[in-house]
């Protein structure tokens, strides 16, 4: 009887946020089997939120993620505000959007330059590129710093900003800060052009798998911090129906939950947002999409990185508009008394990696009784697994190392935020 050599190799994925393994099971003459395993240490945030007072909830929720702390704060604040029936002012909404744009620019540029770029230049990290491709690295770091500076000037600091609170902001930027930001945003345009030009030249792996795309959508804007849920399979749903969409489930080899809706998996994130809301992108972003070859509906998951560049172009322009509007309106000191009472509130935002939901139930004294958080990367895990399976099947001739590298690049293209997804 002939023996068949079977080899199982699980490698940790580097240059992503958090801990995940790519397990490849190869046996001679057979298509390799592939499995996406989440090994991240769970922190049990839903349990930790239980019993917390309303004014601390967003402070704790922020700690779910170091990269998208602003998104978690905003989803948390929106949930608390919905539970207490608080409507925030136009000024607060504009400042939140501005702070949010800062996070998205920083997060996207971190992914585009520090996490993904080394793959295309044949190195293991950005560090050697600081010598060989200095201009490129500096362009990326400048854009990333722009995002951080917006967060610092509007929110207090870049990670876990302190200024946002239930109902408004504890600290307001003055006119000088806004004028400075306006300049910085204008100065960023050549760097964005350079980014588009550089990525246009790269050979993004060609692979398509049609799937369901889900994102927030809003009639007035490219939805980021408000809207209702839209699925390319089933259309619009209101926020309180989110559980019917996300359907989280456990699997033994993942400390993070998986999710499914109309099919075996769905995708969230930049590519989903562009696939759903591309009509609301501004002209500069549409031009960037055109140059990068992003034509919605776009079903190549590797294009998510390009979609992030398109969104960054959109967001920089958007931030300039917000700053102009704030300058025109003038910044006003606001009072926002909060009256805690029993109730449930759901807050949803588009974190850089996709749809993020916080759902809290409060008791009469303003303490959380029950919390549920649905994280973007949770929703992508099943889609990553199905993409990996098809990617392996459609590349029968690739040698193992080469196949593994391609699989890693696929996982990376989703910009997974794994600690977040395990929370």
């Amino acid at each position, binding site marked *: 009887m002939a023996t068949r050599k079977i080899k199982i190799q699980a490698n*940790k994925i*580097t*240059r*992503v*946020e*958090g*801990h995940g393994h790519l397990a490849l099971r190869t046996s001679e003459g057979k298509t390799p089997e592939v499995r996406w395993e989440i090994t991240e*240490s*769970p*922190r*049990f945030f*839903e*349990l*930790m939120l239980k*019993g*917390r*007072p309303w004014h*601390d909830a967003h*402070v*704790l929720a922020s*700690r*779910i*993620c*170091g*990269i998208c*702390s602003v998104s978690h704060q905003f989803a948390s604040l929106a949930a608390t505000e919905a539970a207490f029936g608080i409507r925030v002012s136009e000024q607060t909404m504009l400042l939140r959007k501005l702070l949010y744009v800062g996070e998205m620019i920083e997060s996207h540029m*971190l992914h585009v330059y*520090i*996490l993904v770029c*080394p793959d295309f230049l044949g190195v*293991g*990290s*950005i*560090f050697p590129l*600081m010598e060989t491709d200095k201009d490129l690295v500096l362009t990326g*770091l400048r854009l*990333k*710093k722009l995002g*951080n500076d917006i967060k610092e000037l509007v*929110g*207090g*600091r*870049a*990670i*876990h*900003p*302190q*200024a946002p*609170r239930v109902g408004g*902001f*504890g*600290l*307001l930027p003055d006119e000088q800060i806004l004028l400075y930001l306006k300049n910085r945003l204008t100065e960023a345009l050549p760097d964005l052009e350079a980014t588009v030009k550089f990525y246009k030249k790269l050979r993004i792996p060609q692979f398509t798998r049609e799937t369901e795309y889900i994102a927030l959508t809003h009639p007035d804007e490219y939805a980021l911090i408000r809207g209702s849920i839209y699925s390319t399979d089933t259309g619009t749903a209101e926020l309180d129906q989110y559980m019917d969409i996300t359907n989280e489930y*456990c*699997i*033994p080899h993942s*400390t993070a939950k998986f999710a499914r809706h109309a099919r075996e998996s769905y995708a969230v994130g930049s590519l989903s947002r562009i696939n759903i809301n591309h009509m609301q992108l501004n002209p500069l972003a549409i031009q960037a999409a055109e140059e990068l070859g992003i034509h919605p509906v776009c079903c190549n998951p590797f294009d998510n990185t390009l979609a992030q560049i398109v969104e960054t172009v959109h967001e920089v322009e958007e931030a300039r508009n917000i700053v102009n509007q704030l300058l025109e309106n003038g910044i006003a000191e606001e009072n926002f008394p909060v009256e805690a009472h029993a109730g449930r509130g759901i807050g949803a935002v588009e974190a850089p990696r996709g749809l993020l939901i916080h759902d809290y139930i409060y008791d009469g004294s303003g303490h959380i009784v029950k919390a549920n958080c649905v994280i973007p990367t949770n929703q992508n895990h099943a889609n990553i697994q199905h993409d990996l399976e098809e990617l392996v099947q459609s590349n029968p001739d690739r040698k193992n190392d080469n196949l593994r590298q391609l699989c890693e690049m696929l996982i990376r293209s989703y910009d997974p935020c794994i*600690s*977040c997804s395990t929370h």
Partner: protein
Amino acid sequence: MKPRVAVFDFTCCEGCELQILNCGEELSDLLSALDIVEFREAMSESADYYDIAFIDGACSRRSEISALRDIRKRAKMVIPIGACACLGGVNCLKNYYPMDEVLRSEYGKNAEYFDTISARPISAVIPVEFYIPGCPIVKKEFIRVVREILSGQIPYQFNDPVCAECKTAGNVCVFDKGITCLGPLTRGGCEATCVTGGATCWGCRGLVDKPNINAEKLILEQAGLSEDDVIKKFDLFNACQESMWRLEKSKYKLTK
């Protein structure tokens, strides 16, 4: 040969690692004086031994205990960074519940597949040489500590409460605005960034060496906080030290 530096992450949000990447220009200056040999969040390479191992995150699984011991064997110097690694941080809020209940709360009937233990700081598992506190760490402090180590000094550890820097920053005391604060007890070095940033001190850098807990408790209760509020305020980042807080409480009598 340049010192070999590694960065590891355990149970955390990886925000402190991101702070290192946020150091930008100062980081690229440092790169001329050291080699980063392992940093999973930012690079594919790994290494066998390190002169300095920075550790982000708390220990909250059995597998993390052995991983930490392994790092200890390979590293000349181990430095926890951030509230999770230095104090256990927010992770310790789960320690109020039995661990099987913790697992069931998230995974239901699949709880048996997963592992969790009471969250603890790195120093509870392996000896450490120094620590850089904060949630997240302060970029300036990180760069300073690395420079001091590279030049052969014992790095300076702040031991003044946040209040000292808060006064220097010219802030109005938040107690005067009707907000409560842990600044009087909390280790400074953050330039009182949270109060300056329009909020209050949540105690993320841990306590100063000899905290005057009774005085803090007095002002919190005078500000109208109940016993439960006081503990909740304190344990957000310092739940690992919460037992100390409870013990001290009995010695104290509230005077109105």
